[in-house]
């Protein structure tokens, strides 16, 4: 069924709110400061609003709707108790500028989470302030730059493999660095890095496991190469879900890493945030962390802002606290052995999908996969492409994998199942993938026309970009 825009439901005089009667005299602002009513604002009853958003929700697909193998996004199950936890009145109602002695519960939770993330990652110091992965990247790269500045030379360039997320180069640019792209062959070789590494290079940004789902097996040597020339190594922690309890970036020689709590630590993605992107650093970099940092002194927790070498503040207040609560709840629920088990099952699931599909879909890189597996469109016949497979999967009831990324694989199909999916779910998904491959051979129109079971078909994205309509105009 169709659903109009909220503005199209509006009727003058309708109300969806109630407020107590004003219990003080109504005051008057100077007229010059006062606006007219907000033109175009909707006017609806509560039931109108509830139905509108309820209906809109039915056009969406979430992890609770079904399998969501979006590569690099770690769409694991979002535990329900964590939602309840974040809504506890003492968390949801705590003001960020309340006195510290009246915020001890919140501060203790943050301090504990810092410690736990430190233990999982092998970094001695962690900031919880960044609001998202890319925000964490920016924080981390600013720290690297600040460290270089403190050494007296900020340097000019940053090395980034061609498999990296687009946020990596964008972040380096925001720190005033030139980006040097490293062509990789699935994984990065220390040799290749050594060729590019010199005293003009501030550092290297890697993702490990990388976006092909492969472990950067020379990571230790690579870090040594970078360090030898006075550089630092940044790790994009998007794929930490492969490594918990198995290996720690801090032990590999990496200097800075961000976490995606909305990936590895099961906080919901919210249709595009809010997430949280804490950053872990080596002891040498700790003085550069953004302020404030939560510290414990004599059993009391406080916010420390007196850090002269800090890069400063990345946002107002202390971080996406509501997300931190969920991640903390997740870690406390699984414990150390549970986190390791999660990573093991995530990797097992990815390898299981790989084993079942490898004969049918083309696998460009043959190294052992970790938490995700990347196929290419090479084996698809009859002008069927990755996009067609993705859209056809929708008709089978699945969210498509990530497609056309990483860029180094032509028509990449990047599948990350996560550990919360059962063998049955993976089997059904693999059967759908195999059926689609058969359809591509025998009945390619099914792919080209897909999806047909959704409320809308494929969108004219070109028209959208050519003549942007970015708001309702009445």
């Amino acid at each position: 069924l169709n659903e109009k825009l909220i503005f199209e439901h509006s009727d003058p005089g309708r109300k969806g709110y109630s407020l107590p009667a004003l219990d003080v005299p109504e005051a008057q602002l100077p007229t010059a400061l006062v606006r007219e009513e907000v033109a175009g604002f909707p006017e609806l009853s509560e039931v109108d609003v509830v139905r509108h958003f309820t209906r809109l929700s039915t056009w969406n697909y979430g992890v609770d709707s079904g399998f969501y193998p979006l590569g690099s996004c770690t769409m694991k199950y979002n535990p329900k108790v964590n939602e309840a936890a974040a809504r506890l009145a003492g968390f949801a109602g705590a003001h960020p500028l309340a006195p510290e002695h009246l915020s001890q519960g919140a501060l203790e939770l943050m301090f504990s989470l810092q410690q736990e993330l430190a233990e999982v990652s092998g970094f001695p110091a962690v900031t919880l302030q960044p609001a998202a992965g890319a925000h964490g990247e920016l924080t981390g790269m600013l720290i690297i730059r600040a460290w270089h500045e403190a050494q007296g030379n900020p340097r000019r360039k940053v090395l980034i493999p061609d498999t990296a997320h687009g946020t990596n180069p964008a972040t380096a640019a925001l720190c005033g660095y030139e980006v040097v792209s490293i062509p990789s062959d699935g994984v990065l070789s220390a040799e290749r890095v050594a060729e590019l590494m010199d005293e003009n290079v501030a550092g290297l940004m890697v993702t490990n496991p990388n976006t092909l789902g492969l472990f950067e097996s020379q990571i230790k040597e690579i870090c040594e190469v970078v360090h030898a020339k006075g550089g630092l190594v940044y790790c994009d922690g998007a794929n930490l879900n492969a490594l918990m309890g198995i290996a720690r970036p801090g032990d590999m020689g990496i200097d800075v890493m961000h976490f995606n709590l909305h990936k590895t630590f099961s906080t919901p993605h919210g249709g595009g945030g809010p997430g949280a992107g804490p950053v872990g650093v080596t002891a040498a970099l700790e003085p550069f962390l953004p302020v404030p940092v939560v510290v414990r002194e004599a059993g009391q927790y406080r916010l420390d802002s007196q850090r002269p070498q800090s890069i400063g503040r990345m946002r107002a207040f202390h971080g996406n606290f509501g997300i931190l609560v969920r991640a903390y709840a997740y870690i406390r629920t699984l414990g150390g052995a549970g986190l390791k088990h999660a990573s093991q099952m995530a990797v097992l699931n990815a390898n299981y999908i790989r084993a079942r599909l490898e004969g049918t879909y083309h696998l460009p890189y043959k190294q052992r996969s970790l938490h995700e597996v990347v196929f290419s469109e090479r084996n698809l016949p009859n002008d069927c492409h990755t996009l067609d497979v993705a859209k056809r999967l929708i008709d089978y009831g699945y969210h498509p994998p990530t497609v056309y990324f990483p860029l180094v694989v032509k028509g990449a199909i990047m599948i990350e199942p996560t550990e919360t999916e059962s063998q049955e779910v993976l089997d059904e998904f693999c059967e759908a993938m195999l059926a689609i491959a058969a359809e591509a051979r025998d009945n390619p129109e099914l792919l080209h026309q897909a999806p047909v079971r959704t409320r809308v078909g494929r969108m004219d994205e070109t028209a959208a970009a050519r003549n942007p309509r970015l708001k309702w105009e009445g």
Partner: protein
Amino acid sequence: MRYIPHTQEDIQQMLETVGVGSLEELFEEIPKSVRLQRPLDLSAPLSEPELLRHLRSLADRNATPDSMPSFLGGGAYNHFIPAAVDQLISRSEFYTAYTPYQPEISQGTLQAIFEYQTLVCQLTGMDVANASMYDGASACAEAVLMAVRATRRKRVLISEALHPEYRETVATYCRYLDVELVPVPFDASGGTDMSALSSLLDKETAALVVGYPNFFGVVEDLAAQAEVAHGLGARLVAAVQEPIALGLLKSPGELGADIVAGEGQSFGIPVAFGGPYLGFFAARQKDLRTMPGRLVGETLDTRGQRGFVLTLATREQHIRREKATSNICSNEGLCALMATIYLSLMGKSGIREVAVQNFSKAEYAKRAIGALQGFSIPFAGATFNEFVVEAGVEAGAVLERLERQGILGGIALGGYFPEMSNRFLVCVTEQNSRQEIDALVAALAGGEK
């Protein structure tokens, strides 16, 4: 483990299919030298009931407006959130979805963001709005960078009456980009000093950034500032830390702002110790292609039906990489949805009424406190729902005294402005009853009990 479905038998079967003998073998590409050789040293796992008990005990150690009447604002506001907001965002199709890359199964999120963009434009009086940013401070920093891009100038004036944490964030973002940040003082009104501004603005200036209302709650004269700024080719950035004000105050767009960046927490989002919040961001049509952040646009599908897609992605990092307008990727989608639902419920008359209530209650408090012996209102400018109080003695001591009487009376300003150690910021919203305000005034008047 209730979140992981694998039974021992499943694991065995799957290992066989994969063709490995053990789970360890799956990780063979990881060199032994970087493997963790011990278990993670974390607390023992908690069952669901134990977890809830533990978290409740932590939560109970934080003050909330239910446990203690509160006059704290300063960028995080205690407004009423209708129950419908939480119930709608709790629909798992919304909160467990990812960014709407696949429009055919993401029309819910996409249409809601399109509505959000529209609401932000209506409220700010601007042409275009993005799909959200992290918070008001980081949105403000992105606004500065955008002004720099749009004008190709590197000098930015920042009002010292802008929220100090916004100023700090702008400084961090600009740190290594060769942008010169020039502070502009405020005057006795509590607003940005216009004569200082006139002398500081020059032809190299990319932008002027002011709060609207500013950190002191004062309503800046945006129209005058816009005139000066535009005269020299600079952009005016209005940073809105309390957007409820826009229900009553002239919109920044109407007054000439070029970019509006603000904090949407007031629109149905809990204060939650500082996050997640909602950075909103709006600009003029002419600057569209230099805007940061996601945009949702209207288009048609193959069947000719209206639908919505992410669009103009060529500004973004996943396409443009180091040439992108920002590195932002995931934003605050669910918070944008909360704001959309909140504003849909409040509607045209509700946003006005709640704004009038905030303003009127704050005025009531301001007049009463200003009339007290030993207290004064140092700034003369019109304020919205916050105002600065001058105590004559150390503000921290006054606030501690209020605290002992069960009232969170405000935010001491000495930490932000060393010269203001006797001043504090009081915020009054529609959630503060007259009784609470009277109690605050009485407590201030009464001295130590």
